[in-house]
């Protein structure tokens, strides 16, 4: 059962990667990256169980944190650039 889950997770990660390459708008790519990150968290946790190494859970927690921060950072970046553009167009 764990093997089935691992295989599904890897498949889903590949699918997210396809969307990440293909997605027309930038937000699609952000979504794909976020999806990839959360699936990696689950993959590490499941692999930890498969290999019998509970230390992997620390890494899973770390990935979850980094994934969250990256997504928020990208969105703040968009907000900043949009605001700068608006500031410039409002001045004109």
């Amino acid at each position, binding site marked *: 059962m764990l093997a089935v889950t691992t295989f599904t997770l890897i498949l889903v*990660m590949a699918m997210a990667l396809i969307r990440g390459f293909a997605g027309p708008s930038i937000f699609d790519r952000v979504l794909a*990256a976020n999806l990839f990150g959360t699936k990696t968290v689950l993959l590490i946790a499941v692999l930890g169980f498969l290999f019998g190494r509970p230390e*992997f859970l620390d890494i899973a927690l770390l990935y979850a*944190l980094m*994934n969250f921060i*990256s997504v928020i950072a990208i969105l703040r*970046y968009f907000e900043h650039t949009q605001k700068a553009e608006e500031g410039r167009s409002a001045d004109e």
Partner: protein
Amino acid sequence: MLFATAIGIVLSRDLIAVVMLTGIYGFLSASFFVLMDAVDVAFTEAAVGAGISPLLMLLTLAMVGRKEQANRSRNFFALMLVTITGALLIIGTFGMPEFGSANAPAHTHVAPRYIEQSGAEIGIPNIVTSVLASYRGFDTFGEVAVIFTAGIGVLSLLMLKPAPSQVPLSNGARHHTVLRIVSKILIPPILLFALYVQFHGDYGPGGGFQAGVIFAAGIILYTMFFGVDVAQQVVSSAVLRVLAAFGVLLYGSVGLVSMLNGGEFLNYSVLAENPLTGQHIGILVIELGVGITVAAVMVMIFYCFAGQQSKQVEAEE
């Protein structure tokens, strides 16, 4: 998947896509490290390569612009040079013993000694930490010095804004109420997790570097929502400068105390009556020094980058 991501990074013109692909690349390499059973390396790679590096790149992009400039000249000489060097390197690896072979010198002499003797000599379960902190303590000292130097370099290039005496209401994220509240709830556990990783490095994956990065990530999260000004009230740049230097000083002082106690520089066994206890104390203190310096330098670099951005916004107004 790694190969595809790398090709994507090189070929893509949109720099945001490059940043995200770099993040995905970081996650993938960390997964590989986990598969190869190198848990500590995966930890550090995840923290730095997948979290902090894309973050800093994004900050740079916010000032520079999204599209990569078209590179008109095609430099054949450079391409040839890179190809030849790469080919030489690859041919060189054929001479190396096979991956994981039992006859490799690293596996016959160095690694078994560490594995067999580290329990008796140092006595902590995590052999990676014992190698990093005690057997190769000089290397780690050099690494901390490098991080500190990088921080100084960034400081000298981009000056740090001094903490303002009055704090205006934060400009950016006022309407992001959900995100602010959630981050207020999340940040204390994140900092706690950083401390856990720091002190648990003896027994599980972790140690100073990873803990420093996690701690910095917590503060960066706070800065992203409340603005650099408010964040500087909490963790001011003067404190950061002192802390960055203090970490390196702590590390060096352990070495000096060892010398004062009659041993060589960074020989922890002489720090207490029982050599094992001495090793434990030494490792604990230097990991603390590493963690403090890494956290302080990361937050300092982030402040420098983010401060540039708000300076640019002010200059435009």
